[in-house]
């Protein structure tokens, strides 16, 4: 019988939640790396027992951990993220130029085919790759060296590269997103990159339609249709049908089009999920009601999913990397909150129940569907 393993990164450690395919009874293990911020942990699609974790702290910097037994035991991997050459500068909050400086790894994206190859999205924004299971990391510096690089500036959370999508049909195509520079794509394995932000409109910018500078919060893709992308921008939910060449807004009847995560149903490429948040200064759900919104039409028509979720006095946030889906026949959807709850739905969002209620603030949620 299939099993599900949910990997949860929090402000104070990592937790692994496991269940059988019914997803009713859960075993909670952790915390691993207690006291450290775990921005993200994720398993290799090519070897589900191979996991990678980003462990960091304000005191002791960045550590990368690797597990070869599904998270039971871990070994420290390489943690040197050196920018290629002289890093140069980017724009700072006050408009001055600021040296590029490594702060932490926000996101780890294992290769679809090789357990030893992983991409890392880091702050200050850059993408790194290891091909030796995390022992050494090399920057794919064509991204940071894009001519627009000196104009990139941090969002409130730092200038982070937080999203990496690998195209399963074109191994040399990678999509990334940076706050607050926007989305970028490479078609040559990471040597050269170009912005893919046409159609985005951000009123907080001097030129709302500029090529770069947009605060993209998250990208999502269904593996069967890698040319169709979905985006939760700072404000606006967006869709592209041409691999990011152009975007159109699909927010429509959402109660707020601000939010962080966005994800796609495992078996229905037009079914997508977002969690509306009231505003960029009020990082909690509108009306104190925690609602996931689902569109079965790839955007534009949204329905509120509320059964099992708190519908009064709820003021948590759901961060950008804190939503995931499993690939069981009845698609499971999962998300974690800054209040420490991890909610699961075994019926594609129709009903929800908390797996755990009292973890530290959840930074990331990933799901592995195991045979």
């Amino acid at each position, binding site marked *: 019988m299939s099993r599900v393993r949910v990997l949860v990164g929090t402000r104070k450690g990592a937790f692994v939640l496991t269940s059988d395919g019914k997803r009713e009874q859960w075993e909670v293990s952790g915390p691993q790396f207690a*006291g*450290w911020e775990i921005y993200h942990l994720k398993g290799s699609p090519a070897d589900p027992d191979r996991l990678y974790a980003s462990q960091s*702290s*304000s*005191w*002791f*910097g*960045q*550590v990368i951990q690797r597990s070869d037994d599904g998270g039971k035991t871990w070994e*420290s991997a390489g*943690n*040197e*993220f*050196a920018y290629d050459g002289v890093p140069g500068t980017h724009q700072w909050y006050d408009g001055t130029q600021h040296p590029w*400086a*490594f702060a932490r790894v926000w996101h780890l994206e294992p290769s679809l085919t090789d357990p030893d190859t992983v991409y890392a999205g880091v702050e200050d924004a850059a993408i790194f790759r290891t091909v030796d299971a995390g022992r050494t990391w090399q920057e794919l510096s064509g991204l940071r060296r894009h001519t627009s690089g000196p104009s990139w500036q941090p969002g409130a959370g730092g200038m982070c590269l937080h999203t990496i999508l690998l195209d399963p049909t074109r191994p040399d195509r990678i999509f990334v997103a940076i706050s607050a520079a926007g989305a970028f794509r490479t078609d040559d394995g990471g040597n050269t990159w170009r912005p893919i932000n046409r159609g985005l409109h951000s009123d907080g910018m001097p030129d709302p339609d500029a090529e770069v500078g947009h605060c993209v919060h998250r990208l999502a893709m269904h593996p069967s249709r890698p040319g169709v992308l979905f985006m939760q921008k700072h404000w606006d939910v967006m869709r592209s049908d041409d691999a990011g060449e152009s975007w159109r807004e699909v927010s429509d009847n959402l109660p707020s089009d601000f939010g962080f995560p966005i994800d796609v149903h495992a078996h229905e490429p037009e079914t997508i999920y977002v969690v509306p948040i009231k505003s960029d200064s009020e990082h909690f759900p509108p009306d104190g009601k925690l609602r996931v919104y689902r569109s079965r039409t790839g955007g534009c028509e949204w329905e509120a999913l509320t059964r099992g979720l708190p519908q009064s006095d709820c003021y948590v946030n759901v961060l950008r990397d804190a939503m995931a889906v499993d690939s069981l026949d009845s698609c499971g959807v999962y998300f974690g909150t800054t209040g420490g709850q991890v909610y699961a739905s075994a019926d594609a969002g129709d009903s929800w129940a908390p797996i755990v209620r009292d973890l530290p603030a959840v930074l990331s949620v990933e799901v592995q569907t195991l045979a």
Partner: protein
Amino acid sequence: MLPAHLRTLARIDGEAEVEVEGPATQRSVLDALEARYPMLRGTIRDYATQSRRPFVRFFACEEDLSHEAPDARLPDAIATGAEPFMIVGAIAGG
């Protein structure tokens, strides 16, 4: 002597002892420590600058040596092992 989180990371029970070739300095002690426990690289000193991380302090013989030059000689009591070189995580919330 290391902060608890770094002892856990390096799987050290109690104090770590290292042999230092040449004069005992902050740099030579930390180099020896990192050679024996590679997982500590980057956690005490920044990789790029080799500077002490802001929330890490160095104490020895009841003195704060955090602002001493990395190549300044440590007190003899450290070099002989009579007193510990203390790597301390700053007391700060979070």
